């Protein structure tokens, strides 16, 4: 254990540096400063843990930096921690152990930060420590002696202030200069019987090439502690070689026989005792009594977590965020939609009419547009989240809201993802990345799409227009009721999920409340951009592909005569008006009433085509199932086409009712809907859009998962099709049952509702 293994670092070869550190240690700021913001963001294979890699700038030698997830420990109990541990041990697919580990510690919070530092040091490989945020330490009345710290730890310690780029040169130099460890790999010892058992496990790990010789002792200790408690704490068990498993079990029996029943506690206590001795040698007050001053953060918190002012401030921040996502993105979304229309028109002009032209213009460009149109909302939400995280307010928001979320088994950190899902579930689901516990995160993801998003609004408005008339209060009341239905359903389902498939040990809520920082614009924009771009590259491809599929279902098979018939009728209409079709095609004047007739002919052909397509046929197929909900086959077609995106309902219904899809004014559509009558069945001749049917249809849209983008994002965020499949199924069932209940109860309540 006392053997020190300095690894010779050749100057000519690529040097790989891993950057480890606690959350809130300023690790990312330092990483950005060292790599000059030129880095690659991706995911580690198989997990949704963000992976960031960059090149060290100004080094004169090729050095790559790998930013490990911010963790408090290397005990592999969360995906983040496991990634950090496996990366340091060289157990990540396709990557060897790093040549050097840079551990970033917060000088103002040295004891807890050095806990992770101690675990990294115990892995026996070259380490450099950046003692960061020295300014914050000083403001808190602490003087940290980096030389004394270096002497006590046996590795180079460089004092830095990442936000002001202080100490970066010294840090670069020490990353490039190999320096042997001057202290034992582990500064503390366990009772002899335990050391023997750990040593035996370490030898097995070496034999099996589980990790290299230098790391074996530290790795053995980590594995012993992680596998001490009977039940594995991470849902998916670790895939250890069976010999390692047996060896761990044998060592555990040996240690218990020797009288130690709680090895993990012993290890933690020994580590902290050693850290206490190290810190005592390196940290003192800047001046007598300086360490007791009230921090600025405390003064801010006295307002921001105050019973009244804190709640008001929180409500104001959330309201601002909500308004920004909801309305701030609107002009940009309008521009994107206009741009999409422009490109589609350009394709139509440039290409001969036919399936290829339609595929490119409507299928592909439409699909890409469906992705890009979310981008402004996602950017705005991530801008807010970066701002809240960087300033330290995010932790306070969770602190304030935890009590409310506890009731349904969720975490304080679930609040912001759920709230932003009112605007759009896609960024809301991506925002769940801040929730560390995988079960809490999944429960939040699974219920986020029930929050009534902005895409449902046009649907509500159309239905309300057809059913409830123009009373503003009635309209507003019904829409508000739909938001309540969605929210209550989300909270109930969260409770259901937490008690069934996602049941586990009660959620742990252990949250650091870091001191407030002034947010730095550069870092915030960078964080916003990194996350938003992931949406385009990761989810975007799936969304665009699914949109093309939905387009094809409505496009094929082609109606044999509808279009040629429409063509013939249009020509006939033009000749009765005394116009030359060829001249009109070149752009000649057409009187308004002729133009209206031409539109009607086109709309009717489009309606025939839709009814003839796969989706149109499916509408007829599903009608028997939808009748108990009060829906006819036309609504069935609207619902089916909405599975790509809910707002499609309005344009599809326009086509189904032969009034066209492109108009902003939905008055003709609403009139047609109001006039619609049942063609057959017990209600034949009666109106379709009764109050009960209208409410039933709206409840269906609240509860049903009609959004391929959401499913694609869930697929990306959970790395399997299992969760999107479960989400789609449970929401569809919920929507069916909910609508059925509303319609059946509604029609039985009597004449007033029908």
């Amino acid at each position, binding site marked *: 254990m006392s053997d020190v293994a300095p690894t010779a670092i050749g100057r000519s070869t690529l040097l790989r540096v891993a950057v480890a550190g606690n959350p809130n240690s300023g690790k990312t700021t330092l990483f950005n400063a060292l790599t000059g913001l030129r880095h690659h963001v991706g995911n580690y294979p198989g997990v949704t843990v963000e992976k960031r890699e960059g090149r060290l700038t100004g080094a004169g030698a090729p050095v790559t930096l790998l930013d490990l997830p911010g963790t*408090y420990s290397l*005990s592999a109990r969360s995906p983040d921690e496991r990634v950090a541990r496996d990366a340091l041990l060289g157990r990540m697919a396709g990557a060897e152990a790093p040549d050097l580990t840079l551990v970033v510690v917060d000088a103002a919070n040295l004891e807890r930060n050095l806990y992770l530092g101690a675990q990294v040091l115990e892995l026996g490989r070259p380490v450099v420590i950046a003692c960061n945020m020295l300014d914050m330490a000083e403001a808190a009345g602490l003087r940290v002696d980096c030389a004394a710290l270096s002497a006590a730890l046996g590795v180079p310690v460089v004092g830095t202030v990442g936000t002001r780029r202080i100490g970066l040169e010294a840090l670069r130099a020490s990353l490039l200069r190999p320096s042997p460890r001057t202290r034992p790999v582990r500064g503390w010892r366990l009772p002899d019987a335990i050391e023997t058992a750990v040593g035996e496990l370490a030898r097995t790990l070496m034999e099996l090439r589980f990790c290299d010789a230098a790391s074996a002792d530290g790795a053995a200790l980590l594995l012993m502690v992680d596998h001490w408690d009977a039940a594995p704490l991470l849902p998916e068990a670790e895939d250890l070689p069976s010999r390692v498993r047996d060896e761990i079990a044998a060592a555990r029996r040996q240690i218990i026989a020797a009288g130690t029943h709680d090895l993990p506690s012993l290890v*933690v206590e020994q580590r902290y005792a050693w850290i206490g001795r190290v810190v005592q040698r390196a940290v003192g007050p800047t001046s007598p009594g300086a360490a007791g001053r009230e921090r600025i953060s405390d003064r801010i918190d006295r307002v921001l*977590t105050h019973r009244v002012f804190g709640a008001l401030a929180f409500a104001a921040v959330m309201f601002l965020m909500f308004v920004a996502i909801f309305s701030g993105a609107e002009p940009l979304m309008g521009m994107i939609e206009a741009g999409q229309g422009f490109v589609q028109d350009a394709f139509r002009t440039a290409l001969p009419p036919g399936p290829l032209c339609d595929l490119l213009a409507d299928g592909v460009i439409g699909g890409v547009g469906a992705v890009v149109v979310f981008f402004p909302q996602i950017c705005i939400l991530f801008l807010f989240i970066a701002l809240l995280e960087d300033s330290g307010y995010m932790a306070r928001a969770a602190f304030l809201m935890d009590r409310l979320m506890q009731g349904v088994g969720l975490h304080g950190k679930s609040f912001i993802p759920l709230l932003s899902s009112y605007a759009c579930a896609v960024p809301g689901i991506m925002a769940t990345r801040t929730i560390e516990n995988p079960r809490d995160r999944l429960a939040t993801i699974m219920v986020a799409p029930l929050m009534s998003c902005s895409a449902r609004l046009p649907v509500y408005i159309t239905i309300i227009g057809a059913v409830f008339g123009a009373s503003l209060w009635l309209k507003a009341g019904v829409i508000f009721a739909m938001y309540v239905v969605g929210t209550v359903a989300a909270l109930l389902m969260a409770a259901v999920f937490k008690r069934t498939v996602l049941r586990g040990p009660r959620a742990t809520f*252990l949250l650091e409340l870091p001191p407030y920082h002034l947010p730095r614009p550069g870092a915030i924009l960078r964080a916003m951009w990194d996350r938003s771009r992931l949406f385009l590259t990761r989810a975007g491809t799936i969304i665009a592909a699914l949109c093309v599929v939905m387009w094809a279902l409505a496009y094929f098979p082609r109606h044999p005569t509808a279009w040629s018939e429409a063509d013939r009728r249009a020509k006939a209409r033009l000749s009765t008006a005394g116009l030359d079709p060829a001249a009109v095609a070149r752009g000649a004047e057409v009187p308004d009433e002729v133009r209206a007739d031409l539109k009607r002919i086109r709309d009717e052909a489009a309606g025939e085509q839709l009814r003839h397509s796969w989706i149109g046929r499916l509408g007829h197929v599903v009608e028997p199932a939808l009748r108990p909900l009060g829906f006819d086959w036309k609504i069935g077609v609207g619902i089916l086409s909405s599975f790509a995106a809910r707002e499609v309902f309005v344009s599809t219904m326009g086509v189904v009712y032969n009034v066209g899809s492109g108009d902003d004014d939905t008055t003709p559509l609403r009139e047609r809907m109001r006039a619609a009558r049942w063609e057959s069945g017990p209600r034949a001749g009666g109106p379709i859009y009764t109050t009960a049917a209208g409410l039933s249809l709206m409840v269906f849209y609240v509860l049903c998962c009609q959004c391929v983008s959401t499913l694609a994002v869930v697929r990306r965020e959970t790395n399997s099709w299992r969760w999107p499949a479960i989400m789609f199924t449970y929401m569809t069932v919920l929507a069916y049952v909910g609508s059925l209940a509303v319609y059946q109860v509604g029609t039985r309540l009597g004449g007033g509702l029908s």
Partner: protein
Amino acid sequence: MTARHDGEYSLAELPLGREGRVRAIEVGAELRRRLQEMGVIVGTIVRLTRIAPLGDPLEIEVRGYRLSVRRADARGIHLAHDPAGEALTAPMAAPAVA
């Protein structure tokens, strides 16, 4: 280990602004390990610094930083009367006895 003696109480019963020394941690395995890794171990001094507006969770100071724990979990963190901390039982703003 679970027996309670006079002058012992849980973190949830600590008056706002006061300190106590951790005597035992009796919570679920996962939380217990996390608390320990975050520096809340037997012998550590913790101070209750804040209570969330809805009465839960709590904010404590430990090893110079702030940590939020739920009240239900705090009930499992048993504190001992700290011999060095007479202020534990005395009112905080007690005037110094001349």
